[in-house]
């Protein structure tokens, strides 16, 4: 089976090339040529954790942060036993990885200014996205936000790749004190002075995505958001990573963020109903009674 853009996900055993600390996070580079050769911004990879006979059955899914024809790199935040296990890997260890997975970001067909918004380690795919957009002649403005300076990701790389970078932190330890949603309206105004902003791209926590989609819509700019729903399989068979999204026919369906996403049009995601099955969803609110 192929997903968008003709990519075919592969499962392979991948040797750890490097594991380095990036602020509060760990960047894990794997030798995965068949994944790297197909990767596009917004794709993710699903990593098995714990080795053979692991008690942790579910894969951990991460956006691809960097790749080339031989390797891929993901950025992880240690939040539980699975990510802690990954953070203890050493060069030469072998992991079971599947990728590239999901629907990547759509790039504009004609050059237009683009605003990229990332929260915490969710910013991982923005640097390759910025590079791809610049290669198409799109001016790129990146907004990066996090709780604190050590939880910002990609500021140095974004500064090298983008035309402008704006940083926010909740505690004011870097950039503007506040949230990305505080600075986004001003950034949209500034980025759109010469020609209208073509697209807003965002990845990060759901509350941030909701705010970004709302502000982009208010500015009349289409947005694409990469969601972070928890997944069990990453390949489309378990039906756990669903969220309510409005389809072309105007009706809401519970769709899989791993296959139909993780990138969705911001205007289509029912952010008010994430975690629920809206009563107006297709066959939502059904009762077994």
């Amino acid at each position, binding site marked *: 089976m192929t997903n968008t853009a003709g990519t075919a996900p592969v*499962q392979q055993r991948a040797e750890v090339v490097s594991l380095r600390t990036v602020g509060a996070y760990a960047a894990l580079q794997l030798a995965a040529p068949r994944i790297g050769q197909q990767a596009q911004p917004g794709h993710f990879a699903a990593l098995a954790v714990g080795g053979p006979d692991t008690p942790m059955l579910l894969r951990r899914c991460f956006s691809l942060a960097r790749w080339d024809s031989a390797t891929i790199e993901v950025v992880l935040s240690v939040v539980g036993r699975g990510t802690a296990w990954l953070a203890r890997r050493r060069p030469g260890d072998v992991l079971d990885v599947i990728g590239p997975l999901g629907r990547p970001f759509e790039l504009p067909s004609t050059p237009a200014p683009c605003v990229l918004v990332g929260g915490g380690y969710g910013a991982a795919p923005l640097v390759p996205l910025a590079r791809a957009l610049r290669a198409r002649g799109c001016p790129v403005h990146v907004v990066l936000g996090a709780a604190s300076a050590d939880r910002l990701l990609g500021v140095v790389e974004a500064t090298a790749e983008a035309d402008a970078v704006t940083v926010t932190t909740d505690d004011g330890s870097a950039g503007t004190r506040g949230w990305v949603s505080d600075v986004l309206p001003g950034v949209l105004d500034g980025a759109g002075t010469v020609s209208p902003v073509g697209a807003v791209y965002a990845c990060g926590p759901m509350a941030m995505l909701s705010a970004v989609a709302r502000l982009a819509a208010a500015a009349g700019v289409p947005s694409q958001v990469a969601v972070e729903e928890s997944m069990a399989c990453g390949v*489309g068979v*378990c039906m*756990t990573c669903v*969220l309510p999204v409005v389809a072309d026919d105007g009706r809401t369906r519970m769709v899989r963020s791993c296959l139909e996403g993780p990138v969705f049009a911001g205007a289509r995601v029912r952010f008010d109903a994430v975690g629920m099955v809206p009563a107006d969803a297709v066959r939502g609110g059904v009762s077994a009674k």
Partner: protein
Amino acid sequence: MTDPTTGTDPTTETDVTTTLAGVAFPGPVFTASGCAAAGRELAPYFDLSAIGGVVTKSVMRRPRAGRATPRMAETASGMLNSIGLQGPGIDAFLAEDLPWLAERGVPAVVSIAGQSMEEYAELAARLRGAPGLAMVEVNISCPNVEDRGHVFACSPDAAADVVAGVRRATAPDVPVFVKLSPDVTDIVTIARSVVDAGADGLSMINTLLGVAIDTAAMRPVLASVTGGLSGPAVKPVALRCVWQVHAALPDVPILGMGGIRSGLDALEFLLAGASAVSVGTVTFHDPAAPARVQAELAVALRERGLARMSEVVGRAHERPAHERPAHEQRADEGGAHHGRASRRDVVRAG
């Protein structure tokens, strides 16, 4: 099926062709309902036509959005899920999912679920004659419905009524297997009841009802509080169910499932009395698991000098010869206990 790690083709040395209630399948390992969607999503990871077949996610009469999220919680060697039978409904299934499997020569075991006896019978009738349909699995045991009183698998009479209706509506050459819940006082009673009602075989087990608590939020992890426990954690329970039912009903074929992650796990189910197995939750961990488990099972059978699947089914029930009285040894010379359900034709004639 070539084993990528050795480059060998172990299946050529042991005949893994599997017969369930008179229907031949390419192998003894199937996907498990709810763990493979309708097969298509797993196609990048292994050759679906090389395993026994795809057991589809339970299809219902109408599209269904399922339950709120979070729907999943990882637990020790397992997981809880509360998907709530999200699916496209029988119309879309017949238009898109089943033809996709049929075009690729993948035997389809179609799992059906209903909220009433009538819905089950209607689903069976809609499936009648559909190309690619190899078998029907009647899911009377999904724990993730709003009304636990509608878990038909918990009542011998309700389960029998559902099965009788499905059997009547299904083509005679298509076996009807019934998926049982382990969350019952005596699974043998339920098994006997559905077999008497015309079931050609039994699939066991469905998930066990469980709860996980988020100690940070101090709330249940799952939005719906309870979910079905699956994965290697449930394997001993599943083996116990297969064991008890095979001991009581040795002629009824069993599709065994519950935590299988390796060929040796599958072999345990065969030894306990299953004629074939489904690989479920472990597919989330390793999407190639059904094919891998089948290849590993073939190697395990070959290593034990077993040329055919039939030599192993229920074998763990046989006492070593020196422990048996002489008259029992003679009685067992006819072979292992397995094969078609002999009750099927009797029930239909009645």
